[in-house]
């Protein structure tokens, strides 16, 4: 079986080469993104304004010392590269009031990723299923319900959707008579109880925000999956699969769905980008102290380092999802390997 193995190895090395090249490309784009964010933030922010507007006005020496602390006396490029050098060593610099960013970063990334990952998984799985069902039950009640529902959700901005869901959750809490659905913070601040009780507490806090962020994803994926599936349903190869004796369900799942999933791999990277923007609103709305909340805070405080760090995080997220979508693409579609 030598030739077969050689062919497989060639294909394998081609795929890894393709993926490695994409990865290198993404790293360069990551650097450009942080560079742009850093320079734009440095050029437009006025971090000394807070100090200058203080009453009584601080002495010029204090202001000069603060400016030196923030390295405002150095040229912009030098500041960027010293920040970047720090990042490579795991040091993301300090906020304006002097606390190191690295200390808070881990917790905030954890909070955000919990929201993003759950939102993505629920969004992709439910969205693809809804799209397939919608296509298979073409022009029947189910299809209309899913279509109208996703159109309405896609026309609703995330902050409004979250606001409405919050209202709905409140009604449910009234009806049940207890606070089963929580919507401030990611956990009860001074929670007392064992491990499982605290897991339960976190889940209570998780439901409404996750729903807020997942609904948009579900709507997005179901629209595209529906049209991709409709294309596949009319295709010859599916009729062939049925003709050779596969059951309808088996033909649909093994041949139809796999083909219809290919465009979703490309959509995945795009969907994740919109998810992150939505995450900023969701965190803000439900007072989760994640990365999105940090960005809004950082811009309000005119803090270049926080803003650049969040940009780096977002860029890495988008690029990882872009790379994942390349991987998914090469898994789902054998043609790109040849």
């Amino acid at each position, binding site marked *: 079986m030598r030739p077969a193995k050689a062919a497989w190895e060639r294909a394998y090395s081609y795929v890894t080469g393709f993926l490695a090249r994409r990865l290198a490309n993404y790293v360069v784009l990551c650097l450009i993104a942080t560079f742009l964010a850093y320079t734009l933030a440095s050029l*437009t922010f006025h971090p000394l304004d807070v100090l200058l507007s203080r009453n009584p006005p601080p002495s010029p020496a204090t202001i000069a010392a603060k400016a030196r602390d923030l390295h405002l006396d150095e040229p912009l490029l030098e500041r960027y590269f010293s920040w970047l050098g720090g990042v490579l060593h795991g040091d993301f610099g300090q906020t304006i009031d002097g606390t190191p960013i690295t200390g808070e970063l881990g917790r905030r990334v954890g909070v955000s990723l919990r929201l993003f990952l759950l939102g993505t998984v629920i969004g992709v799985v439910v969205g693809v299923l809804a799209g397939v069902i919608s296509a298979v039950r073409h022009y029947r009640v189910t299809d209309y319900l899913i279509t109208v529902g996703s159109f309405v959700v896609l*026309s609703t901005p995330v902050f409004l959707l979250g606001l409405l869901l919050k*209202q709905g959750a409140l009604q449910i809490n009234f009806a049940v008579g207890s606070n089963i659905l929580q919507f401030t913070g990611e956990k009860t601040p001074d929670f007392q109880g064992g491990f499982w009780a605290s897991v339960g507490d976190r889940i209570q806090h998780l439901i409404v925000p996750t729903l807020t962020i997942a609904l948009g994803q579900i709507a997005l994926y179901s629209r595209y999956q529906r049209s991709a599936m409709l294309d596949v349903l009319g295709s010859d190869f599916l009729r062939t699969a049925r003709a050779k004796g596969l059951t309808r369900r088996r033909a649909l799942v093994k041949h139809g769905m796999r083909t219809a999933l290919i465009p979703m791999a490309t959509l995945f990277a795009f969907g994740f980008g919109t998810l992150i923007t939505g995450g900023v609103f969701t965190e803000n709305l439900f007072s989760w102290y994640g990365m999105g909340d940090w960005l*809004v805070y950082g*811009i309000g405080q005119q803090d270049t380092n926080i803003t650049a760090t969040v940009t780096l995080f977002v860029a890495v997220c988008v690029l990882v999802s*872009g790379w994942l979508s390349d991987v998914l693409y090469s898994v789902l579609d054998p043609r790109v390997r040849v």
Partner: protein
Amino acid sequence: MVLTGSAPGRVARAPVSRGRLVLRRFLRKRLAVAGLVVIVVMYAVAFLAPLFSPWTYASQDPSAYLSPPGPRHWFGTTQIGGDVFVQTMHGLQRSLTIGLLVALVSTGLAALVGAAAGYFGGWTDRALMWLVDLLLVLPSFLILAILSQWLRHQGWLMFVLMLAAFLWMITARMVRGLTFSLREREFVKAARYAGEGPWRIIGRHILPNMASLLIVDATVNVGTAVLAETGLSYFGFGVQAPDVSLGTLIRDGAPFALTSPWLFLPAGLLLILGVLAVSFAGDGLRDAFDPAGGRS
């Protein structure tokens, strides 16, 4: 396609022009027509309705703080006695204007850049497509939020330009692809040999041939732009006080959503309705322009 309304006796009939054909196909889509009507009515009402109200969006009624909707104040009042109806209409007007302008600018930009990249090819093409790729990867929401510090002193027209700067990339790619094939067509070659300059060819021969794509794209962009604008304004990164948009109205009403929902609900519902109407109209237009779409 046979479109007959003619009596059987008539033999020859002037061929239907493309514009009329598209219009007829569009009018057959009830949802799309409804979307278009809703958008036009909303925009007209947003301009006209405040004329019939005794209040302006900046005036205050000291006899009614935070009062629920009633005959005196149709949508109720805010904490300081502002009339929610007039404010909502003003916000709607601002949001829709920004949406329409952004769509126009971004589609225009996409047409120019895409056509230039496709027509000139070579290094022009490479440089422009690199720019497109870069802008696609950049988290646009973030960049706009960072720029808001500078934007707040520039007025809302600059905000329109910045929003448009992050919306044109995908369309530019499509335009480029279409230009590649149009460039080799006989009528373009004929124009070239007749001595027409490249920009004249792009403007007179290439872009008119993809008018349908551009019209549909502009329509869809209105919805996207309105969503982006309200989102940024919600955080205070967009339209600045004392000006109001649907986004700032929702933000201001949100903290009191549970006790006085009239503060944000009108703006919220109008926003959903507007974007929904635009996307239905856009869908209908796409089907009307696409001969293969038929009537499904």
